[in-house]
C-alpha cells in the first residue's frame, strides 16, 4: 500500500501487475477498434449477397480473409458486425442492470428494517424465476427489435448486483463518515447518491465487467435460438447458429464466430477478475 496515491491510481497500479488481465484488456480494445473501423473502411457491406463467390473458404488471396457465407457475404465484415452488436448489447444491458441493481441494493441496504427485508425478499423470489424462459417470452412481447432486447436482458440480470451492493451498503453504513454526514444534516436520497454510491464504485465496476460477458452469452443464446437479432443483421450468436447448419460442408462458418465469441467472453472474465483484485485487494 502506498497511501500517497489516490484510489484510482492505486487500482490502476495493481491492475497493471496482472498480466493476463492487461492482455485481456488489450485484446478487447483491439476487437472493439476492429469492429468499429473495419466496416467503416471496407468498400463492401455485410448484407448484399454476391452470387459469384458463395461459401469461399478463408484465404489471404482474393480479399476475403475469413471467406464468405452461403450468400457470398464477406465473413470478416459479418463477424465484425456481430462483434459490434454483441458488444453493444453487452455494454448497454449491463449498464441498465447496474443502474437497477445499484439503486435497489443501496436503497434496501441504507433503509434497513422492513423496507430492506421486503426488497431483498423480492430479490429472493425473483431468483427462483426461470430466467431464459422469461427472456424468451419477453422477446415475443417486444417483437424483434434489437434495442428492446437490450432492455429486456438488462431488466432481468440485476439481481446479483443488487445483493452485492446491499451487502456493501450495510458495511458502509457503520463507517464514521456516514455518521458525520448524518450529523451535518444529510439524509435520504442525498445520502445514498452523495456518500453511499460513490464509495461502491470499485465493486460496481468489477461486477459490471463480469455482467457484460454473461449478457453477451445470453443474447447469443437467444439469437442462436432464432429469437434475437434478425437477418441480414448478425450477432455472434446468430452467426454461430448459421454456421452450425453449414458445418458439414463449410466448418469455418461455425468456427470463426465461435472463436470470436469465446475470445470476447474469456477476455471480459479475465479483465473482471483482474479488476476485482485491483479494486478490492482484501478479497483474495
Amino acid at each position: 500500500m502506498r497511501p500517497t496515491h489516490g484510489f484510482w491510481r492505486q487500482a490502476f497500479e495493481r491492475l497493471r501487475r496482472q498480466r493476463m488481465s492487461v492482455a485481456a484488456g488489450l485484446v478487447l480494445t483491439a476487437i472493439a477498434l476492429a469492429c468499429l473501423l473495419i466496416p467503416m473502411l471496407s468498400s463492401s457491406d455485410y448484407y448484399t449477397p454476391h452470387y459469384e463467390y458463395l461459401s469461399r473458404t478463408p484465404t489471404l488471396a482474393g480479399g476475403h480473409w475469413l471467406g464468405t457465407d452461403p450468400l457470398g457475404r464477406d465473413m470478416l465484415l459479418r463477424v465484425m458486425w456481430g462483434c459490434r452488436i454483441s458488444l453493444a448489447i453487452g455494454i448497454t444491458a449491463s449498464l441498465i442492470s447496474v443502474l437497477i441493481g445499484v439503486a435497489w441494493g443501496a436503497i434496501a441496504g441504507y433503509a434497513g428494517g422492513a423496507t430492506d427485508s421486503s426488497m431483498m425478499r423480492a430479490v429472493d423470489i425473483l431468483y427462483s424465476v426461470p430466467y431464459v424462459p422469461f427472456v424468451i417470452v419477453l422477446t415475443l412481447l417486444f417483437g424483434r427489435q434489437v434495442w428492446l432486447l437490450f432492455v429486456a436482458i438488462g431488466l432481468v440480470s440485476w439481481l446479483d448486483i443488487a445483493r452485492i451492493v446491499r451487502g456493501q451498503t450495510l458495511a458502509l453504513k457503520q463507517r464514521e463518515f456516514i455518521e458525520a454526514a448524518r450529523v451535518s444534516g444529510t439524509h435520504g436520497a442525498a445520502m445514498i447518491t452523495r456518500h453511499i454510491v460513490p464509495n461502491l464504485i470499485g465493486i460496481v465496476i468489477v461486477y459490471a465487467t463480469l455482467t457484460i460477458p454473461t449478457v453477451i452469452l445470453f443474447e447469443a443464446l437467444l439469437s442462436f435460438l432464432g429469437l434475437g437479432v434478425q437477418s441480414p443483421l448478425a450477432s455472434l450468436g446468430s452467426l454461430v447458429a448459421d454456421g452450425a447448419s453449414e458445418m458439414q460442408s463449410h466448418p469455418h462458418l461455425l468456427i470463426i464466430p465461435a472463436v470470436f465469441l469465446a475470445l470476447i467472453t474469456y477476455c471480459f472474465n479475465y479483465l473482471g477478475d483482474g479488476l476485482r483484485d485491483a479494486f478490492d485487494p482484501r478479497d483474495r
Partner: protein
Amino acid sequence: MLRYAVHRFLSAIPTLLLVATLAFVLLHAAPGGPFDSDKRILPAIQQSIEAKYHLDEPLWRQYLRYLSDLGRGDLGPSFQYRGTSVNEIIAQGFPVDLTVGAAAIVLALIIGVAIGINAALRRGSSEDYGSMAIAIVGISTPVFVVAPLLVLVFAVNLHWLPAGDWVGGSVKHLVLPSVALALPYIAYIARLMRASTIEVMNSPFIRTARSKGLPLRVIILRHALRPTLTPLVSFLGPAIAGLITGSIVVESVFGLPGIGRYFLTGALNRDYTLVVGITVLYGALIVLFNLLADLCYALIDPRVRLR
C-alpha cells in the same frame, strides 16, 4: 429440519404463483394469438374455437380459470397440439430431459470431482495449471457453441456417434447431448473442488491423519472428501437453472423430444397454456433443487442449523 422443509415448501407457493402470473400476463400481452397462423377459416369457426378454449372471455376470467385449474394440478389443453393436454405433453417430454440432465449431472460430478482433487493434490504442477486453464475455457464456452462443435467432430468427421435424434433414449444417442450439457459443469465443479480440497488438505485434522501414517487414498476418501463436498452442494442448487437453459439448447441442436423444444415452438405459436405450464414446471424445479441443496448442506455439515 422437517419443520424447515415444510416452511420452505409453503413459501414456494407465492413464488410459483408469481412465475405463473408473470408468464401468463407477458404471453397474453404479446401480439398475436394461438389461432392466428391458421389457414383462412370462417369467422364463425374461429369464434367457436376461441369459445372452446375460453379465449373470448376477459383476461382476468381466463387468469382466474387458469389458476383454479393449476391449483388442481391441471395445466389445461394445449392450443397447438389439439386434443392433447399440457400435462400429457410434459409427461411425454420430461423423461427425456430427466434422462439427459441426470446423465449430465452424474458425468459432471464424477469427472469434475476427480479432476479437481487431482489438480489440488498436484498443486503448482503443469497438470494443475493445464487442467485449470482448460476449465476456464470450459466455463466460458457456451453450450450452443460446444454442442455443434461436438457434432462436427464426433458425428460428421469421425462418424462415432449419431448427430441427433432420440430413438427411445438409446445410450448411443444419449452420449453427445449429455456431454455437451455436462462440459461447463465439469469445468465449474473441477474449479470448486480444487479450491475446497486445497483448503481442507491444509486443515489440522488432515495433518493428524497424515501423522498417523494413513495412506493418502484413505485420507482423501475417509476424511477429506466429505468436507470438500460442501461448496459443491450449494452450487448444485443454482446449477439447475443453467441446466434448464442448456437443455433448451441441447434439445434444439440434437432434435430431442424434450419439453425445452415444446417450450420454444409453443412460445413461437403463442401456445399460452403450454408455455405457462412449462415455465411453472421450470420454476418448481428451481425451487425444489434449492431446497434439496439446503437440506443436503445440513446433512453433510453438522454445523449448519436450519431454522
